């Protein structure tokens, strides 16, 4: 049974000048997690907005849990949860106030709203911060509260639009933990992200989108295979370059990539950390201390490069500054 189906969705902005969705097709099996991966401006947010009833597409059909999103938005709203790219809670109010307000707006009784708020605050480790205004929360706490607000009525389908964008590494880890717990509970989840690592961590399947349509779909393993998997990268001092080349050649069956200027030798590996340990052992035996050694996972750029032949490009001017900041991390 499909929890989400989108067929041939089209949406243009600015009187047809910007094509946000260009014949997008998507479906998500009930109880699974789909990661929608793509750069800024690829159409991720527009997709979520259409599915979450906020935006009517120019053409196409969207069904959530058997209900037509365009014909019957109010029914869809009863069974979905949405947590957006920007934490959409009232910052002036406390975490408690927010959860009560949203609970009441979901038409819970005052008593039910209270007990649900207590439950959610506990679940998201926010009990101690409950009576503090949101503006005193850290980025991670804010996101957790936002997520809690979207779970008030235990939605059948949950949409998370870039749930960790703007969070520090620790906040991201916490958020991943929280989302993984939710998924165990059986909710159908569609999440958008710019990070392959995130989709890898959370999603059963990944849909890569570019220019408003899906350009690849599969498990993270199958996508990585397509992209070329992990690479071993070693940086050594000049006098050890030759010996290191030999070592890398022994752990990888593919062609080496040597950057003399960076004194970096790299090669694709199929055995992951095993290859890394082996290389490190061999280097140690030879008495070579690498300046840097590690496994590089394919990035969003690698995925795009191999799928489309071009790097992930930004399309919306207003997102540019923000995006370059994100990339910088």
């Amino acid at each position: 049974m499909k929890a989400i189906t989108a067929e041939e969705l089209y949406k243009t902005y600015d009187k047809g000048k910007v094509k946000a969705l260009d014949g997008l097709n998507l479906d998500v099996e009930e109880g699974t997690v789909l990661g929608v991966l793509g750069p800024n401006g690829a159409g991720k947010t527009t997709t979520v907005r259409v599915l979450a009833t906020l935006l009517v597409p120019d053409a196409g059909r969207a069904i959530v849990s058997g209900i037509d999103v365009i014909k019957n938005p109010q029914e869809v709203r009863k069974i979905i949860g949405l947590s957006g790219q920007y934490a959409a809670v009232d910052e002036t109010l406390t975490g408690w106030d927010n959860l009560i307000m949203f609970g009441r707006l979901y038409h819970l009784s005052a008593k039910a709203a209270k007990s649900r708020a207590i439950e959610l605050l506990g679940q998201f480790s926010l009990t101690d911060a409950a009576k503090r205004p949101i503006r005193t929360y850290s980025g991670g706490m804010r996101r957790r509260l936002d997520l809690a607000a979207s779970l008030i009525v235990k939605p059948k389908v949950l949409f998370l639009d870039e749930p960790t964008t703007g969070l520090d590494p620790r906040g991201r880890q916490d958020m991943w933990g929280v989302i993984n717990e939710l998924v165990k509970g059986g909710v159908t989840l569609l999440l958008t992200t710019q990070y392959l690592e995130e989709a890898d961590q959370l999603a059963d399947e990944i849909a890569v989108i570019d220019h408003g349509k899906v350009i690849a779909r599969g498990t993270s393993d199958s996508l990585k295979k397509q992209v070329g998997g992990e690479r071993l990268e070693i940086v050594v001092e000049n006098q050890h370059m030759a010996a290191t080349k030999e070592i890398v050649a022994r752990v990888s069956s593919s062609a080496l990539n040597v950057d003399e200027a960076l004194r970096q030798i790299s090669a694709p590996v199929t055995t992951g950390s095993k290859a890394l340990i082996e290389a490190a052992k061999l280097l140690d035996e030879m008495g070579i201390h690498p300046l840097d050694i590690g496994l590089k996972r394919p990035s969003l750029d690698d995925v795009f490069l191999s799928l489309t032949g071009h790097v992930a490009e930004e399309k919306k001017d207003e997102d540019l500054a923000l995006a370059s900041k994100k990339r910088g991390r």
Partner: protein
Amino acid sequence: MHAILDALIITKRQLLQLARVPELILFSIIQPIMFVLLFRYVFGGSIDTGQPGGYVQLLMPGIFVQTVAFTLAGTAVGLTADMQKGLIARFRSLPISRSAVVFGRTLGDGALNIVVLTAMGLTGFIVGWRPSSGLLNITLGFVFLLVFGFAMSWVGVLIGLSVREERVATNATFIAVFPLTFLSNAFAPTTGMPKPLQYIAEWNPVSTMVAGCRQLFGLENQFGATAGSFPSENPLTMSIFYMIVIMAIFIPLSVRKYNRAVNK
């Protein structure tokens, strides 16, 4: 029934904001109070009104109307902020009535007006304002003001949901309302204006509101409304007509706008 309850939850949110950040109330009443004192003592001495009780009797209705007209600004800025932060998107994803959020907001701003008008009325009383028309008419005068504020608030909804930035909302509403309140009989007689402006001032809803309030607060002198024209002869009728027209236009437009609103 749900529609009303949903709207009241949104109104309650706004009142809760005031309770959590009391400075918000303080700043909403400081400016109007300052205006009452400034106009009373700066212009009061030099404008001869021939009115028993002096300029302050005429000033208070004028400044009440100006203040409630500016409700529009608060509504607009509040909604633009909600939109920017993504709160409107969250509200729109909820199974609530299609007009709850905007109705709740205008009711909330109306409720704040009760506090503001009370503070101004008390300040006015301290500096010599003495409405002489009896409790019923005075109450009617305030109801009249609140309804006008409510109507103007709907103009603010449309502006607030149409602009992208809070600062734009602030400037746009200021530019819209400021000339409207001064191109009127609120603070000075319109008879001194150039003819075309006199004409505009006479038909200006702010002028008919001010004249209507003066009538309800028991003043004979219409202060500036040139005699004989329809709006100056029938300020209450004209004001009610204006309020109905504003609401009939802006409520449907605003609700429609809300249901299509997405932040960038």
